[in-house]
């Protein structure tokens, strides 16, 4: 019994992982084909991008380089050649940085992850706290001010905010440096962690602003809905105080959608980082993609397209899996509830009215009454807490 259950749950777990991997691979393939079509159609001249616009070489030499690189081959052939190299771990050499694309991606992704991670955590924590406070004290002065600011900030363009922040905090107040990830003119070996953090704070703050605004508004709305719900009203009718209500029912029901939103926000975060990094000259993926796009660095562009697709995809997968693990409506309905009839006390015999046929002793496992924003296939591989015994 236990073994067969274990086997069946392992099989569904394996199915889920295989399915996710297949979707990831097909997504990456689609993204690479689409990006390749776009860069092929764009008026990029890789040879000029490589040698630089000032260098004077004859058209014959240019043509020789182009022929050497296979630029006269039909696009499908070039794509297949690129794909073959990528599958062998070679994403090509960046035309503007003269370094292997994989090395650049790694270095830039680390810098970007620090920036985006900080902004992400800030927007999640700050937004959640402010949203909860606003929702609980709906209609208060704090709520009104926060709501108005959040509405304004959520539509403010990131690059404009970044410029504003640079002007105020770096130029006038001089609290923070003028962009970059490390102090200019300092040897790489001398750069401390404090230096890096100091350079990270302003871009991270700016990047988190729209996230904070969105999470605040969303959490506030969910909290207001939760506190006006029938279950909150019933709890009130059972003498629960406002704080008990918030703690027992409010936070519980608000945390789930907030968590989903937080992981699903990876795409926006990446989009915002492109603009913020550009303004702060922060050497992350975002500024690399701008440089690559403006100067026609096709290998780097394709590499970044793949990495960003992977990044957003993993955010969504994490949201899906977490939702399935945390929300009991998905977790419990993924595994149909089977009480062991033999071990259960006979409910009808303990009923105060033995004559009435007990029409209700078998629990039913209904499908989730509230489908999640991102539906998780009810694969049922999530383990029930406490194993499979209910006795």
């Amino acid at each position: 019994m236990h073994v067969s259950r274990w086997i069946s749950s392992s099989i569904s777990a394996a199915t889920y992982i295989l399915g996710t991997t297949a979707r990831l691979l097909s997504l990456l393939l689609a993204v690479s084909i689409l990006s390749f079509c776009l860069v092929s159609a764009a008026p990029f001249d890789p040879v000029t991008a490589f040698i630089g616009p000032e260098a004077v070489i004859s058209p014959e030499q240019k043509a020789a380089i182009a022929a050497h690189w296979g630029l006269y081959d039909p696009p499908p052939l070039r794509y297949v050649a690129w794909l073959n190299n990528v599958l062998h771990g070679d994403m090509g050499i960046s035309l503007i940085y003269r370094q292997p694309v994989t090395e650049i991606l790694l270095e830039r992704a680390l810098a970007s992850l620090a920036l985006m991670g900080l902004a992400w955590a800030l927007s999640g924590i700050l937004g959640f706290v402010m949203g909860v406070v606003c929702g609980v004290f709906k209609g208060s002065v704090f709520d009104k001010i926060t709501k108005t600011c959040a509405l304004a900030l959520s539509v403010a363009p990131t690059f404009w905010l970044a410029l504003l922040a640079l002007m105020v905090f770096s130029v006038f107040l001089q609290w923070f440096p003028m962009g970059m990830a490390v102090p200019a003119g300092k040897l790489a070996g001398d750069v401390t962690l404090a230096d890096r953090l100091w350079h990270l704070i302003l871009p991270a703050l700016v990047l988190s602003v729209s996230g904070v605004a969105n999470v605040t508004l969303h959490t506030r709305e969910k909290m207001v809905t939760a506190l006006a719900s029938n279950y909150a009203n019933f709890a009130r009718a059972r003498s629960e105080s406002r704080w008990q209500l918030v703690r027992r029912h409010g936070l519980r029901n608000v945390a789930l959608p907030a968590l989903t939103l937080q992981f699903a926000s990876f795409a926006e975060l990446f989009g915002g980082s492109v603009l913020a990094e550009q303004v702060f000259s922060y050497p992350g993926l975002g500024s690399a993609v701008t440089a690559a796009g403006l100067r026609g660095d096709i290998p780097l562009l394709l590499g970044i397209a793949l990495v960003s697709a992977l990044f957003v995809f993993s955010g969504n997968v994490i949201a899906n899996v977490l939702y399935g693990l945390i929300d009991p409506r998905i977790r419990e309905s993924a595994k149909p509830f089977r009480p062991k009839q033999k071990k259960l006390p006979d409910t009808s015999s303990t009923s105060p009215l033995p004559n009435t046929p007990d029409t209700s002793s078998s629990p039913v496992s209904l499908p989730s009454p509230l489908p999640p924003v991102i539906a998780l296939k009810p694969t049922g591989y999530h383990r029930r807490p406490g194993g499979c015994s209910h006795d």
Partner: protein
Amino acid sequence: MTTHTHPHTHQHYLHIHEHDLASTHHHPATYPLLSIRDLSVRFTQYERGLRQITLETVSSLSLSVDVGEVLAVVGASGSGKSLLAQAILGILPANARISGKMTFQGQELTAQRQQQLRGREIAFVPQSVDYLDPLMKVGRQVQGVRNSRQQQQAVFERYGLAPFVAHLYPFQLSGGMLRRVLIACAVIEDVSLIIADEPTPGLSHAAALEVMRHFRELADEGRAVLIITHDINLAFDVADSIAVFYAGTIFEHAPMADFIAGPDALRHPYTKALYRALPKHGFKPHPGTQPYAGALPAGCLYAKRCEWSTPECEQGTIEMRALRGGMVRCIHAL
């Protein structure tokens, strides 16, 4: 546990307290547990832009219920019955305004007192699974904020809920389990008044009857039970008296015996029509509809449909008055 007695052997008569109707404070001991005088609930709404309208969803409602008694408030769906429960508990939506006077144990039921009493002296049995937190296990919810786990287990045992049910989430409950869980929420608190709002939807007749018998049992143990329902047949089986709800008010509050005796024992023309409309009493339909809460007529709310209607019916306020051991809101009732 009190032995179960058939409700119809209870020769209850309504607790008519003439002095209570005059709303004075002479002898608290003779007051019914809960007494409501001229309760009105109004909602202010914006209709089409900035035009404000007032909906009087409960108007001049009077009734009383005492310890040991099951009172069924019977009315059509959507006639504002649930608001009565919310008004007594003080959990109406923020845009609701109430007027009138409610007393509990002889003392006026103010908003502050409602807050102290609800959950402690007055319990609410809601109508659907929406009233349980979807993300909290049933056992913890029944336990609430003031009771022990042992109390929760005891009340589960009383209602035939197996221990494993405590670890289920609300969405995993069957209809019958849900009813028992909701009743358990009320019983775990040692209250003297239980207000149940439509406690039997979606149940088979047998299961609904079992739920109603639970309420009968709770009243026999010395509580007052007020059941709000649209199902008059279920009320017949367990209630001591029935209050007939129409367009936000009570037309007649009569002992159960009068509903068994038939239309001649009943007082209000609407109650008589309701009696004749029941399948087992001729199934005779009654033309017309209840008036809309936004446009209530002056005088009697039933005048437009009433065969006894005279010009006096459409003037002034029709007061609730005592008649033949019951209460009626009709100037012509004999």
